[in-house]
């Protein structure tokens, strides 16, 4: 029962263009959402988050959008850089203490 879904296992983007990573969730009780970035042989590192009271949060090149009615979350990276090549996980938290993670999207930024 995957409550957080990332339907694209992989994505390739040219350097300088926009990368859009998508995430869908099923539980309307989720109220906090995060994106993590993971390089090979390392643990996930926190990238950006958004609370359900917002629909957008920006941090430099990274912007997260939340569409609560569609239960959809997206991460925009502009402009994409080769160092952004990694696996990106979305995660969601209901009003509790257990995070639910998506299966990840592997982003490749082509120089």
């Amino acid at each position, binding site marked *: 029962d*995957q409550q*957080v879904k990332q339907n694209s*296992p992989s994505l390739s983007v040219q350097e300088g263009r926009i990368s859009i990573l998508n995430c869908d969730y099923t539980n309307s009780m989720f*109220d*906090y959402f*995060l994106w*993590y970035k993971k390089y090979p*042989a*390392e*643990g*996930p*590192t*926190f990238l950006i*988050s958004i*609370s359900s009271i917002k629909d957008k949060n920006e941090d430099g090149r990274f912007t997260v959008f939340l569409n609560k009615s569609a239960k959809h979350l997206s991460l925009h990276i502009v402009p994409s850089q080769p160092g952004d090549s990694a696996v990106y*996980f979305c995660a969601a*938290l209901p*009003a509790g*203490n*257990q*995070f*639910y*993670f*998506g*299966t*990840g999207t592997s982003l490749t930024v082509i120089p």
Partner: protein
Amino acid sequence: NAGVTQTPKFRILKIGQSMTLQCTQDMNHNYMYWYRQDPGMGLKLIYYSVGAGITDKGEVPNGYNVSRSTTEDFPLRLELAAPSQTSVYFCASSPRQGNSPLHFGNGTRLTVT
């Protein structure tokens, strides 16, 4: 500041063997977690702890045990290793419950043959 440190990085076990995955954090975080990641899957919560002396089961606790005698350490024990426990294990911590990102270690890759 080391953050969350996991040892070992890699381990191969035979079926039925036991081992302890070590996790320590130096951020004085009360909350600690163990996750496993299988290929093509999201991270699944095994056990978590809200403070020294307090642990609770997550989504996939069978075959594992934990203890939390100090704030810093949260070891994960496998008593009778099975091939289904082949996975990458991540330890994480956070300063509080709720809207706070998790800080992850670099993982332990375990193979049971």
